[in-house]
Structure formats: C-alpha cells, structure tokens
C-alpha cells in the first residue's frame, strides 16, 4: 500500500530522475537516463501506454535509424514509398521516389510502439509506474517533490531532476514556472478515423489534402494496409466556427477514397505547432516532446523530434546526476543541443506553415498546376519548398531568403 488513509501518512519515494509521461519522448528520456546510470522512475497516468492513440502514426526511416531503433514488424505495420499532394480542386502531385519527408517511411501501430519504447526504458533499468497521475509539485531542498495518485491513493516522489514529458497538456513545465502552455492559435485540433474499405489510389503512398477543407491544417490518408488507413485532419480552432470533427465528417463524405469506407476507431487530440518553446529547462527540470513544442509545425509530426530531444534530455540528466549538478546552468546543455539539432529547422517550417495557411484555395490550385511540370531531384521537405519558391512569386517573396 502506498498511503495509509486512516492516519494520513503519505509515503515518499526518492529517485534521481522522475519522468512524467510515457509517450515516445518520455520513454526515450527514461531509457537514456537509466542507461547513463541514473535511478529513474517513469510515471504514466493511463492504464495502457500508447492507447488511445492521438496520432496518424507516420515516422521516417531516417529518424528511427538516427535513434538506433530497428523497425519491428509488430509496430512498423506499413512501409511507405511515396506521397500524393492533393489541391482543393483535386489536382494532384505524385512524388514516389526515395522518400525524405519527415513523416514518411513507416506507419506505426502506436499502441504497440509506445509500449515497446516503454519496455526499452524498463529494460534499461527505469522503474515504471502505470496508472499513476502526477498532480502537482513543490520545490524542496535540492529537487522537487511530486504528488502522484494511483488507484485512488496519494504518494510522493522526490526527484533531483524532473523530466516533463506530459505531451500537449504540458502541466508539469508550468508547475515549474516554464512557459509550456500552447496558445489556441498554435494548437491544431486533430481528429481521425481508422477506417477499412478505403479505396486509395496507391496503398503505399501517404495522401495529403490541402485548402479550406481543413483551415490552418490539412487532411490526410495514411495507409495501414491495402484497404485500411488513418483518415484524419487537423484545424486551428480559432480560424473556424466548425469543430474538427465536423470537418472530418465532410471530408469523409466528399473524398472519393472514403465514400464506402467504414470507421473502426475515432481518435482525437491537440498538436502544438507553434515551434519549440524558448526555455526548455530550469533548475531541476527538463521539458521534452510535445510539452516543449518539439513538433514540425508544417506536418504536425512530433514522434521522432520528441524522441530525439528525449534522448538528449535523458543523457544530460544522467550526466548531471553523476556530476551532482542539477542547476539551470548545467541542464541548459539540453536546450543547446535541441536548438542545434532542431531549432532553425523548426523555425523555418513554422514560417512555411504560416505562408501556406495564408493561401486561398485557388492559389493552392495554381501551385498544384505549376508543380505538374516540375522535376523533383529529391523528395524532401526542403526540396518541395525550394520548388514552391520557383513556381510561386508570392512564395519567393515570403520564403526566398530562408531556403
């Protein structure tokens, strides 16, 4: 028993590093902190890590490789070898050579993937506390004391370093005085059906649909099998009076691929697309993943970037524990590493996202028309943007200096 309710004694557990949230970023941070020799506890409020999913489940092969993760057919359920971009009037652009787009490569089964990543953390030595909610924290001595609740009982965990990996809710950073909350204009409201009977043009290709069918975002069809796909979209709620769900119902009704499709699952969730927060660490605290805005603003993809920064956080935390220095100055090595690896890339993509969101449906249609005659040397986000700048004088004006 963790707490004796009758006499009100709250048990306190001590650890070096407490990771709050067992999403991909948190599990990766826990794994690397444990591999670095720190005593680690990973807490997750849900009863099943990875479920329900809040994700279209696309990741790049390159990203997994850089993280040293071998794709496993139990969670890498579909290999992707192309993309199809669809303009509001239906004009499409096909790119199916070697894929370098951040979200292309594999479609995951997140319910399995997230669990496997947590298992990796467990095998590396992290203690995992499932169905355990972090409720608040206070500074005490050389660390923080976090109040947790599990199965109706309260207990406390005292840790020298807290890694806040609590996803788009991002409470923990704010408890520590770090500005992690997301402004409504930077939060994409995502909603998705997993469907069967989807009649895709090519079941190995990711489809992206742009324009007023998803204000501030886009719609997608990400295949998970020959007739199975994640069909979803994201909108910026402040740009419309309709809910994301209403947009999805319209999309499914109107898209030829989903006319006969049947939903077997509904997923929803927020995706912070405003870029990485300026300060990601402080005395005794590191913030990782969605909680720190480590998401590609253009695509909304945050699995690989969150895990990459999770790895940096875990490593920095373990080093800080060895050196017995948990100061903001020591932990700022984490901010530096994230900025070096991701900072300028995410900033550029944020500008491209803002630009694309400003285009009308007819402007998007003309870009798709102009793309018909373009030869792509390589399929990467940067290459796409470079070509966009070539075909659109407005893009040249807005983005020319960046790429």
């Amino acid at each position, binding site marked *: 028993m963790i707490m004796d309710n009758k006499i009100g004694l709250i048990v306190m557990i001590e650890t070096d590093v407490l990771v709050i949230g067992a999403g991909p970023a948190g599990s990766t941070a826990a794994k690397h902190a444990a591999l670095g020799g720190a005593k680690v506890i990973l807490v997750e409020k849900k009863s099943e890590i990875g479920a329900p999913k809040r994700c279209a489940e696309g990741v790049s092969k390159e990203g997994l490789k850089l993280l040293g993760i071998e794709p496993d057919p139990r969670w890498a359920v579909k290999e992707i070898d192309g993309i199809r971009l669809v303009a509001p009037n239906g004009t499409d652009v096909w790119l199916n050579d070697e894929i370098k787009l951040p979200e292309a490569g594999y479609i995951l089964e997140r319910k399995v993937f997230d669990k496997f990543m947590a298992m990796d953390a467990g095998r590396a030595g992290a203690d995992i506390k499932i169905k355990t909610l972090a409720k608040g924290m206070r500074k005490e001595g050389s660390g923080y004391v976090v109040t947790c609740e599990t199965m109706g009982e309260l207990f406390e965990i005292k840790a020298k370093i807290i890694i806040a990996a609590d996803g788009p809710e991002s409470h923990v950073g704010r408890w520590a005085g770090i500005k992690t*909350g997301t*402004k409504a204009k930077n939060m994409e409201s995502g*909603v998705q059906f997993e469907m069967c009977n989807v009649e895709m043009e090519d079941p190995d290709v990711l489809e992206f649909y742009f324009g007023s069918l998803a204000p501030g975002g886009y719609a997608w069809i990400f295949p998970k099998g020959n007739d199975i796909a994640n069909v979803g979209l994201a909108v910026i709620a402040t740009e419309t009076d309709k*809910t994301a769900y209403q947009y999805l119902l319209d999309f499914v009704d109107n898209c030829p691929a989903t006319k006969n499709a049947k939903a077997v699952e509904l997923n929803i969730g*927020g995706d912070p697309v405003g870029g990485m927060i300026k300060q990601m660490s402080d005395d005794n605290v590191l913030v990782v993943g969605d909680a720190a805005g480590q998401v590609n603003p253009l695509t909304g993809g945050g699995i690989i970037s969150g895990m990459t920064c999770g790895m940096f956080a875990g490593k920095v935390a373990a080093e800080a524990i060895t050196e017995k220095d948990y100061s903001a100055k020591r932990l700022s090595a984490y901010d530096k590493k994230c900025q070096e690896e991701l900072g300028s890339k995410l900033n550029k993509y944020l500008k491209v996202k803002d630009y694309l969101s400003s285009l009308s449906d007819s402007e998007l249609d003309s870009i798709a028309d102009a793309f018909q005659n373009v030869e792509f040397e390589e399929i990467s986000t940067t290459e796409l943007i470079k070509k966009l700048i070539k075909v659109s004088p407005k893009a040249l004006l807005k983005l020319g200096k960046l790429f």
Partner: protein
Amino acid sequence: MIVKEWCMYCGECAGVCPRNLIEVKETVLVFDDEQCKECEICVKCCPIDALEKN
C-alpha cells in the same frame, strides 16, 4: 464547465488553458472552477464539442 458524456479525455483543453486549471485523468476532467476566468478557450478548441460553459 459541463463535460459532455462523449468527451474522450484527449487533453487538448488542458494544453490551451491559459491558467493551467484542467486536470485530465484517464476518464475524468477536473476543472478548478474557482480560478477559471471563463475565457472559454477550452470550449473553442475541443475537437468534438464536448465542453460547455455552466
């Protein structure tokens, strides 16, 4: 705040709450109504219209 029975506890409301007042348990949302300034950003952002002002 009234939480409709179709709420899926995705937590988007908590992320956009400017005062960090919404606790998201696995199947319960807890609002700190006393501190709430009724900005209704949480209501606006819910992807499935599951929140309503009291």
